[in-house]
């Protein structure tokens, strides 16, 4: 194991302790009561009268989720154990802390565990405080199911969180915020490839063995098995295999504009990501699809997993405005 941790049972608490110290200008940790020290709150949204945006999920995907809490972005992140949804009470506590009487939205990836826990949090907010909490699940991983509503949420969560948060920050009401979340989720498609497993601190080793030189197309960001394992191919060929299912999944037509994210799952260098981006741009150029803007880096990781994903967001004027909306968080700042 090539990791820098102390007791594996303490990783999340210690990370959070470090996180709120390191980024004290942006965030604070809600420690009391139901929050159980697992709710990261934006300092900027404190005095802002708006629909609350709460994102969250398991740890081990940093900078997701806590990295995107801050001005113009999410109001709170609820943090679970590694690869594990947070429990219901912190989900509830985030609502209590954030709600300004306009209701809240939960945004997270579509995983059974997350759904159960966040739903229980929402129920409690409704029953105990009469706060309305809506949920939009992110389902961008094209390869994870034929049915869109069964799909997992992976790196595309970044865009869904970003655009929805912008909508809320602009003063939209809860229904409008929900509509925006659904709209950006519908426009977002991702697919990835992994070349190694992440190291699980609890195990002191990889989640599963992968031979050096192998790759797995379609692997999930928790190491869920993908669709095809084989030898690592040249970057251009790997990108071709990722882009094909993405482009087949939405009707993309000549003249469409997309926002592109080439995302590292952790250990894949920025150097390689740009080699991959080059091929993505070539393919889009061939199809007559315009790259509006792009991001290249690690926006949704699986700790030290070697791997990469490509996300496309098909844009219209509203989505551009939402994605261009200024924000300032520890892991994403835009003027």
């Amino acid at each position, binding site marked *: 194991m090539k990791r820098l941790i102390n007791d*594996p*049972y303490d990783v999340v608490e210690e990370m959070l302790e470090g996180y709120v110290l390191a980024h004290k200008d942006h965030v604070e940790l809600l420690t009391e009561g139901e929050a*159980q020290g697992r709710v990261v709150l934006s300092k900027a949204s404190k005095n802002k009268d708006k629909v609350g945006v709460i994102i969250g999920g*398991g740890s081990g995907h940093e900078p997701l989720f806590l990295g995107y809490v801050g001005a113009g972005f999410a109001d709170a992140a609820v943090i*679970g*154990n*590694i*690869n*594990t*949804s*947070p*429990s*219901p*009470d912190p989900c509830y506590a985030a609502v209590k802390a954030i709600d300004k009487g306009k209701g809240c939205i939960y945004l997270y990836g579509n*995983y*059974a*565990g997350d759904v*159960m*826990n966040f739903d*229980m949090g929402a129920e409690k907010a409704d029953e105990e405080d009469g706060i309305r909490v809506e949920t939009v699940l992110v389902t961008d991983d094209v390869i*994870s*199911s034929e049915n869109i509503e*069964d*799909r*997992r949420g992976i790196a595309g969560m970044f865009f869904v969180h970003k655009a929805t948060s912008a909508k809320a920050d602009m003063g939209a009401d809860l229904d409008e915020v929900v509509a925006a979340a659904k709209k950006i989720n519908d426009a977002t498609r991702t697919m990835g490839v992994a070349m190694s497993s992440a190291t*699980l601190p*609890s*195990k002191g080793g990889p*989640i*599963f063995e992968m031979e050096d030189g192998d790759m797995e197309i379609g692997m*999930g960001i*928790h*190491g*869920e*098995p993908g669709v095809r394992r084989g030898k690592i191919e040249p970057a251009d060929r790997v990108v071709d295999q990722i882009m094909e299912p993405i482009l087949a999944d939405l009707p993309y037509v000549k003249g469409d504009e997309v926002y592109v994210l080439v995302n590292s799952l952790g250990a894949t260098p920025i150097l390689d990501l740009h080699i991959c981006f080059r091929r993505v741009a070539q393919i889009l150029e061939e199809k007559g699809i315009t790259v509006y803007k792009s991001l290249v880096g690690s926006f949704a990781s699986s700790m030290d997993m070697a791997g990469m994903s490509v996300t496309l967001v098909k844009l219209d004027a509203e989505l551009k405005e939402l994605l261009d909306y200024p924000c300032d968080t520890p892991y994403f700042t835009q003027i």
Partner: protein
Amino acid sequence: MSDYILNKDYFIGVLEDLAVLAEEKKVYFSELDSAIGDGDHGMNLSIGFREVSKNLEGWKSEDINTIFKNAGTALLDKVGGASGPLYGGFFMKFGVPAKGKEEVSFDEFIEMMEAGVAIIEKRGKASVGDKTMVDTLRPAVDALRAVYSEDDMAPKEAMKKALEAGSAGSDSTIPIIAKKGRAMRLGERAIGHRDPGSASSVAILEIFYNRMP
């Protein structure tokens, strides 16, 4: 048989053994989960039962219901993921029929099991054949009730049959695809692998059995 009782010590013993189990089988449960999930099922149970174990001493003066409510809440709060609400719910509901009691009859015990399993089915929206812990727990509870009430079997004997039914249920997860949980997205690739939750459920049932007088 009607004077067969399970007292608080039995239940406390079960919780103590569960904490030991969670440590001992941590690697095994996680490895099952690595194959078709995200590799954390063992760690999840370990985190949860460490919390139970840390606090159990302080709960011992409570009634059976409160003890299990506390244990279930500890699992719910500390674990997260799928197994947190499922096993958390199981234990929280498991104690309800024993509200205010220091001991229960075997009929009441069956009622407790039923309550626990029912909340898992409800929360997970899962039924037998979905390749989840329900594939262990539902046949086990059904067998328990059947052999005890219908075949008039001794309690511990009946629990043994329940365990066997649960164990067979877990085995039955191996050759099928999953309709719930992370393994759902694997389609055919889940075939040949035992569902990790079904395995931990067998181990839990085994402790309930082993501890029985």
